[in-house]
């Protein structure tokens, strides 16, 4: 290589280094522009890379001062949801790095115990060839989200506190009911008290689940399932409770695979059936049918029940799926009981599965048909044989 070649090569090297430096600088500018605090840690939980927001959150604003410290050196976590174990493992170098992404709502505390606002902690594996790393981010939740978290904590605490005394009252009522020769008036009041107690316990369970569904999407765990066996199983389990229940049109959905959590779907159908039994005309059929596809990526189930009443206004219908909506006075002037939490819970369960729930009404020859339309996400087929082999049919 002569002097001229060498000089040209050296110039190209300098140009390349300048370009690489500019690229690195741009990446760091982007990393620092994020409002989320982000760090990248190794298996020992040592921080290799930290952005500006993480430095602001943990060490007074200089990112390089976070480098080489462990997560446990700079923070403590107080998880506020069901992912406590997974979140706390992030700080423990004795545990392997998580291989899947996850998130948890938590309070972040400095090693001195000062706590930050509620943060959404997220982690995501960064699988490099040499060794695994983990990207950990912290997002300050908005005031609305914080209020929701506080509401969830309140509801969780409340339902927990109420469960024990209610179980005691319920147990005592049961013991009294076993006594022989109770006067008929006492027995009748006792039966009423036990029914109301069962109702309170059911409401409490629904309220607790509804609150969790609103703030924690992981309560529902969707997977691929063949729809028809799920519906048949639910029908078999439910027709004793509602002899007028009918299942229709399943042949159109044969081998259709949907993305759902079977427990959530069945619980949602239970709520619809409860409501239908309570509010519809029991001498008329209650029908669950497969109504085809929406032409996009959802299939449609229709849950129909009949009543002798006239249809309600569309805005009233929409309110039915809000919690604790009270019904309007009936013909006898008595206020009709509303749908309670059932429709609200069913709607949240469907949302949790990636679907929707809508209410419709249409006049029928003898009154009104109320149709609850459920949209379930359909799995994109890659060959029916492969689909059938891949899906799970066990709802547990």
């Amino acid at each position: 290589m002569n002097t001229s070649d060498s000089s040209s090569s050296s110039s190209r090297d300098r140009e390349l280094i300048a370009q690489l430096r500019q690229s690195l600088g741009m990446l760091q500018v982007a990393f620092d522009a994020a409002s989320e605090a982000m760090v990248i840690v190794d298996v020992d939980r040592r921080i290799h890379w930290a952005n500006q927001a993480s430095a602001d959150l943990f060490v007074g604003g200089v990112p390089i001062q976070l480098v080489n410290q462990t997560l446990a050196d700079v923070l403590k976590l107080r998880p506020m949801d069901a992912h406590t174990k997974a979140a706390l493992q992030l700080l423990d170098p004795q545990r392997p790095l998580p291989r899947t992404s996850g998130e948890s709502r938590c309070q972040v505390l400095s090693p001195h115990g000062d706590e930050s606002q509620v943060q959404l902690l997220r982690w995501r594996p960064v699988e490099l060839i040499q060794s695994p790393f983990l990207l950990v981010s912290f997002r300050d939740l908005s005031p609305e989200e914080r209020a929701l978290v506080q509401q969830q904590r309140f509801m969780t605490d409340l339902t927990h506190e109420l469960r024990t005394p209610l179980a005691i009252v319920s147990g005592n009522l049961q013991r009294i009911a076993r006594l022989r020769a109770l006067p008929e008036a006492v027995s009748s009041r006792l039966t009423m008290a036990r029914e109301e107690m069962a109702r309170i316990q059911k409401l409490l369970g629904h309220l607790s689940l509804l609150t969790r569904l609103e703030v924690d999407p992981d309560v529902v765990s969707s997977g691929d399932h063949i729809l028809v066996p799920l519906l048949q199983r639910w029908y078999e389990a439910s027709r004793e409770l509602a002899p007028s229940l009918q299942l229709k049109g399943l042949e159109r959905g044969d081998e259709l695979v949907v993305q759902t959590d079977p427990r959530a779907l069945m619980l949602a159908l239970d709520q619809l059936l409860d409501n239908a039994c309570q509010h519809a005309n029991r001498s008329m059929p209650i029908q669950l049918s497969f109504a085809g596809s929406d032409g996009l990526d959802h299939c449609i189930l229709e849950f129909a029940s009949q009543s002798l009443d006239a249809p309600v206004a569309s805005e009233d219908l929409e309110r039915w799926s809000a919690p604790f909506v009270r019904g309007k006075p009936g013909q006898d002037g008595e206020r009709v009981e509303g749908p309670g939490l059932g429709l609200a819970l069913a709607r949240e369960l469907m949302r949790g599965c990636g679907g929707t729930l809508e209410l419709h009404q249409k006049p029928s020859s003898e009154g009104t048909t109320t149709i609850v339309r459920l949209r379930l996400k359909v799995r994109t087929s890659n060959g029916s044989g492969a689909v059938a082999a891949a899906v799970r049919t066990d709802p547990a």
Partner: protein
Amino acid sequence: MSTPGAWTEDRIRALREKEDLPFVRADASGILQEINDRFKAVYGWSEAALIVQSLGLILPPSFRDSHHAGFARFQLTEVSKVLNHPLKLATFCSDGHAIESEHFIVAEKHSDGSWSFAATLRPLMESS
């Protein structure tokens, strides 16, 4: 973000002479141009080993990614959080161990638009 304050040759001199502290100076590309005797005595480096080498050499290897990225970002934005205040950082010695030191880093923009950087280091304790 803090912006670098005015930095003059007098200020370099003052830094260098202040309490006989270890001192380093680098050019716009982060290439070391000068180290003083005190720096050589405390951290064990020779001029032959460091001059015209990257400033990253006097940082422990685990800090170099962050240093290079921060340096590259400064060249694009001319904004830094490390300038003009004491900063506790590990300093890498020639024998491979690190000494926790208080760095005071300053920067000067020249009339041609290029930058120079200088720092005094106050050794605090050996960190590894």
